[in-house]
């Protein structure tokens, strides 16, 4: 075989394998694409219902979303719960910084600024120490339900070690500190953009 046809053979072999497996993968994508999109929506729905009690809304939470810029200029997607056209609550993602990096949380708030619920969705805190912010591991995170900016007072929105009211976990103050701060910022975000969020379309 001449060197040139040899080169061509390589190209052909690799090309045809790409063709075959490309088709295989693309076909799989074709058949799973819609299904996967649905699953993603389900997931979102599931986490939203954790912070907004099911009785509070009759709309499609996932669809009823607005985008608001926060203080840092980042877009925040806010999902709105409506019951009979009336706004009953909003939910949005907040990010705190913990020991192992960012902690992603989702929180629900009533139009009055009271917390409906908070859940940690994604974090890399140390197992056995910082992971107690996970509702599956401890009920620590549920204790925020019902609180608001004034309750407790603003200067008490801290962990006990820093002179606030919230328990830290023994030996892991950084995680709770990050979470408490994030929730407080989340409430402040709501307060700042309340007008924008509450108005119904």
């Amino acid at each position, binding site marked *: 075989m001449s*060197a040139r046809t*040899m*080169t*061509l*053979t*390589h*190209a*052909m*072999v*690799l*090309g*045809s*394998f*790409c*063709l075959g*497996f*490309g*088709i295989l*993968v*693309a*076909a799989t*994508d*074709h058949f799973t694409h819609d299904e996967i999109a649905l699953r993603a929506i389900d997931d979102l729905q599931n986490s939203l219902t954790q912070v907004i009690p099911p009785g509070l809304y009759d709309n499609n939470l996932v669809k009823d979303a607005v985008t608001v810029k926060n203080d840092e200029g980042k877009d925040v997607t806010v999902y709105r719960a409506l019951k009979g056209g009336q706004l009953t609550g909003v939910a949005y993602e907040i990010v705190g910084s913990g020991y192992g990096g960012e902690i992603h949380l989702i929180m629900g708030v009533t139009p009055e600024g009271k917390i409906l619920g908070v859940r940690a969705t994604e974090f890399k805190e140390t197992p056995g120490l910082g992971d107690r912010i996970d509702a599956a591991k401890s009920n620590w995170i549920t204790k925020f339900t019902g609180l608001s900016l004034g309750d407790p007072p603003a200067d008490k929105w801290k962990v006990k070690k820093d002179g606030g009211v919230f328990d830290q976990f023994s030996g892991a103050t950084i995680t709770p500190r990050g979470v408490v701060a994030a929730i407080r910022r989340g409430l402040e975000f709501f307060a700042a953009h309340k007008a924008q969020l509450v108005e119904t379309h």
Partner: protein
Amino acid sequence: MLLAVGSLVAMGATLGTVLGIASRYLAVEGNPLEAELLALLPGAQCGQCGFVGCGQAAAALARGEAPVTLCPPGGKAVAEKLSKKLGVKADLSEHEDKGPQYAFVQEDLCIGCLRCANECSTDAFIGAPKQVHTVIRENCHGCAKCFKVCPTEAIKMCAVPVTLGEWHWEKPGSHELH
């Protein structure tokens, strides 16, 4: 979908071409390892390894078809070097040197047949036909080929004695092992 398959194929074809071209221009001729191995062998071309000379022995080593302990004249030292070069862990303890040897012609038995001199790969023999032969010790590497062909068993393989100058200390602790 078409896009996905298309771009993948294009990529595959391109990479295949690049590799094909590369394999053409970057081809390696011969086996460089072989030359390196050959350099390590004694080069006595004595054939004790079962190959026709060191060149073939090196080729076999490079192909992995011969053990690193193949070369008796090279002894442990060469075996160690080969195993290092090839990254092979050889059990060299088995390969205990019998110690260097040299051929000694018992003059009363030698009939001057010249077979030994013809066999010797290093021309270590002096003597003419029908005359008693002797071995130049420094030229003999103890391969014992002459020993094997001598019709009168006039050749003795003797261990090279240790002299004061060549003696060295044993490894510390090796006494306890004995």
